[in-house]
């Protein structure tokens, strides 16, 4: 069973469109994250949720809206897509105690905006 799964794996869309990426984890973790990796491979945190509550919201345009319906799911909706949004988006989860911040990453969603 895949621990952290993201869909879709690839997303190609035009500027101005709205798209969503879904993430699910079956590890029983309390905390989930969205990271963005740009073309230079820089991994930057975007959002973090702990037990469905938003705890980290980095300087991200408000076109990006995360939603956590339960602690096993964290989705990312992006409105009015721009060329600069092209990147690989990674979902991750981590547990508590010694496992806190031990990130388990999903396989990523490669978003291409044309």
């Amino acid at each position, binding site marked *: 069973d895949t621990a952290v799964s993201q869909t879709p794996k690839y997303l190609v869309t035009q500027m101005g469109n709205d798209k969503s990426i879904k993430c699910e984890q079956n590890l029983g973790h309390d905390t989930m994250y969205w990271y963005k990796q740009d073309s230079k491979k*820089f991994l930057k945190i975007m959002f973090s949720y702990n037990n469905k509550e938003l705890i980290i919201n980095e300087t991200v345009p408000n076109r990006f809206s995360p939603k956590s319906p339960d602690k096993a799911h964290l989705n990312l909706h992006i409105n009015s897509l721009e060329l600069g949004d092209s990147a690989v988006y990674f979902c991750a989860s981590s547990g508590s105690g010694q496992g806190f*911040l*031990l990130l388990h990453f999903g396989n990523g969603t490669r978003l291409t905006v044309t």
Partner: protein
Amino acid sequence: QQPVQSPQAVILREGEDAVINCSSSKALYSVHWYRQKHGEAPVFLMILLKGGEQKGHEKISASFNEKKQQSSLYLTASQLSYSGTYFCGTALSGGSNYKLTFGKGTLLTVNP
């Protein structure tokens, strides 16, 4: 605050050793090391908590110098499978230590 990694890239022959460094200008609670192979997700290697402990994972080990806020990753007798981009991630001491900030990565290439 993003940690600084050095070098940016390393090319080795199989069996050679390498050291990757990670430093922070802020007091750290923990340092985390990940490896990402091309086209794949980053994979956890090890965590070092403040206290200067050294950890090992097969022929890969790491140290954390709390006084200097620096960590080093040691790869000995490198294997082809070690190729990839290595990232250090840091969590700050005091207050918001629930965020991992990654360095820009070190691309390690191991050739036969």
